[in-house]
């Protein structure tokens, strides 16, 4: 039976060029579905992996209670100092707590393709411990800022997407000039930031405290110890979150929105593609009606005919799926874009077309191919031989 099926499939597939137009419809329809599905989700995956890469599991971010985001959080100087002295925080090489008080403010930069509307960029004032807490962050051009001077270092993502913060350029903030002296790269969401000395930032922005404290934990028991100590401290109302959890939490909204959009668009498109595939396969079967009837007349049974039509539909669908994934890969993989993150500032990230996404796209293509092929295959297998032979 399988030999029969393959024999008929062979004839069918070789005759595809004869009726290329309807076959092309299936291929293009599926390329559309899979391409769109892959591209949309590649965006979500890229955003997620950028934020997930940010943050260690053995460090915590401490913010004022109920703030949710760093932007909303603020401590005064005293609370900042109290927090840094709490037990559970690791000790740095210099014998001081390995913790960095950080202040987040926002500055506006123009996108590279814009001349008018500024986009919000995070400016992070940090203490020296910030670099020990983020060992993967490297200065890749120029030098680090000098504490006490109005100097900035710029994340490579900012440099890619926005203008006015190249090394050597001057950024105006609150009536003062800040020189960009270096570029850093961390491979995570800090690439979308400008960094400077927290004390200079405090004096410029008229603040005394900080937005958050980032601290390394002293060991597996560190988190519980720190949480207990902070809960027992009446001067503090703060939230303690693992740094990794904090950043993963920031992807939720974006992931849900893009996931929802991708789901909706894919379902609608897939339905459209199923109808188109059905149409094309019905046409293909009709065009080959006489040929199939002849095969049936000389002894081929119905099932191989059914299988062969299904195989043809599947192959066309798969070809479309591969084409779509390829287009998505060529156009979108590693495409650097930026959007507004939870902190109300720009997050620069790259699209990621992963093998898993492509595999999921191809599964969708196969499912559509199966649905689109089955009914026409059934019709072909069941068509009465005599009537089909008599058709002109």
């Amino acid at each position, binding site marked *: 039976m399988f030999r029969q099926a393959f024999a008929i499939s062979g004839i069918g597939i070789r005759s595809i060029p004869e009726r290329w*137009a*309807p076959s092309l*419809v299936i291929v*293009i*329809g599926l*390329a*559309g579905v899979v*391409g*769109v599905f892959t*591209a*949309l989700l590649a*965006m979500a995956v890229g955003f997620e992996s950028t934020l997930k890469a940010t943050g260690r599991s053995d460090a915590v971010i401490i913010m004022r*209670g*109920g*703030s*949710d*985001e760093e*932007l*909303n959080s*603020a401590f005064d100087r005293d609370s900042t100092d109290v927090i840094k002295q709490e037990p559970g925080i690791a000790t740095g090489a210099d014998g001081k707590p390995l913790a960095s008080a950080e202040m987040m*403010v*926002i*500055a*506006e930069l123009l*996108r590279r393709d*814009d001349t*008018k*509307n*500024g*986009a*919000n960029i995070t400016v992070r004032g940090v203490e020296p411990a910030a670099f020990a807490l983020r060992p993967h962050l490297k200065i890749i051009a120029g030098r680090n800022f000098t504490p006490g001077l109005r100097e900035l270092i710029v994340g490579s993502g900012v440099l890619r997407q926005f203008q006015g913060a190249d090394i050597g350029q001057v950024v*105006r*903030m*609150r*009536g003062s000039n800040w020189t960009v002296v270096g570029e850093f790269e961390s491979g995570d969401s800090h690439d979308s930031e400008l960094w400077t000395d927290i004390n200079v930032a405090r004096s410029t*922005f*008229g603040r005394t405290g900080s937005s958050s404290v980032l601290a390394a934990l002293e060991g597996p028991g560190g988190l519980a110890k720190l949480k207990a100590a902070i809960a027992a401290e009446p001067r503090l*109302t703060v939230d303690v979150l693992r740094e990794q959890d904090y950043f993963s939490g920031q992807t939720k909204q974006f992931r849900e*929105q893009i996931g*929802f*959009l991708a789901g*909706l*668009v894919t379902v*609608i*498109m897939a*339905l*459209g*593609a199923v*109808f*188109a595939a*059905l*149409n094309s396969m*019905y*046409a293909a079967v009709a065009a080959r009606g006489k040929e199939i009837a002849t095969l049936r007349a000389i002894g081929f049974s119905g099932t191989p005919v059914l299988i062969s039509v299904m195989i043809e539909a599947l192959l066309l669908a798969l070809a479309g799926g591969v084409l779509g994934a390829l287009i998505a890969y060529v156009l979108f993989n590693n495409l650097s*874009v*930026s*959007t*507004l993150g939870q902190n*109300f500032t*720009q997050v620069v990230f790259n699209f990621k077309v992963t093998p898993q996404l492509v595999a999921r796209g191809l599964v969708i293509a196969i499912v559509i191919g199966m649905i689109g092929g089955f009914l026409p295959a059934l019709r072909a297998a069941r068509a009465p031989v005599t009537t089909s032979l008599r058709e002109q």
Partner: protein
Amino acid sequence: MTKTSFVIANLFRKRTRTILTLLSVIMAFVLFGLLQSVNSLFNAGADFVGATRLMTQARVSFTQPLPTGMVPKLEAVPGVERVAYSMWFGGVWQENTPLFVFAIDPLRYRDVYPEYVMPDEQWQTFAHTRTAMIAGKVLADQYGWKVGQKIPISSNIYPQKNGSKAWAFDLVGIFDGKDDAWRKQTNIAFIQSEYFDEANSFNLKGRTNFFILKLADSKQAQAVSKTIDAMFENSPDETKTQTEKDFNLGFVKQIGDIALIVHWILFAVFFTLLLVVGNTMAQSVRERVPELAVLKTLGFTDGSVLFFVLAEAFSLCLFGGLLGLVLATALGAMVEKGTGGQFVVRLDAGVWSIGILAIVLMSLAVGLLPGLRARRLRIVDALAGR
């Protein structure tokens, strides 16, 4: 047999195909409708505002508040009629739903935004009740707020003096927009800046995120912006002044590339489906070549054969398109409800008219080539199967 019934009969000649094609068209237009309404969302937010208002913010970023002490200086600038200000409160409803709540000076705001309408006594109560709040109609309807209720709202930024971030305000008025565009802009609420200044524990007194300047004449917008920004240059409170329209556009632009990419992806989808339908149309004409020849033999002119094919394409697109747009409208409403208003996908009159234009264009795109082919047919060749 009339021409109309002939076209219909032809459409149902291959029922399966017609229905399948119709379904493809419907899907294309469901998507088109949704896309177009999302698209108009990104481009809108700007059209309804006149150019008579300017927004002044801190040059570094609007998240950096400016002192309200600047108001007299701003009002002294020639061309400026009235100045209002508003401060982002960081409002949160119940667990985690962000609300647009701003602290304002009520009567100044009322002067600068005559587009928001509310009975005078409600404005007066708002101005004279410290814990008062007014809400836009869209927002009040969404959460079922009634005038006279005490509305609990938290702030994710500002605690009260007692350290609690749970605030509560007396709803004293519900305002609406003066026209359709402004009615959509009523998903916001306002509280008194005077009360906010006193009650927040940050000692953040007399600070605000935005000044809104009402101009006597929109032609002065550029000159006034320049004067103001020059006035505060080199101070810690440097300003950036732009028209309200530019300000709104800038806000939407922050969403950035995503909007553009979604836009292009969805257009690709639409064109894919267009191709699919076009092919089916062409195929259907190809199969009927002998029939068309017979029609011509019977005396139908070239023109009327073209008409038949176009009419078929048009009725397919029109029926499928309208149905698709209706479905999209329903789906958009469902999305809006299902996401708690996070996605506002509304197919308004603008989207519908673009949709109808698309239907006409699509009919021509898919019908014209096969139609012209049918028109050109030479009877002898067609009947001979050449």
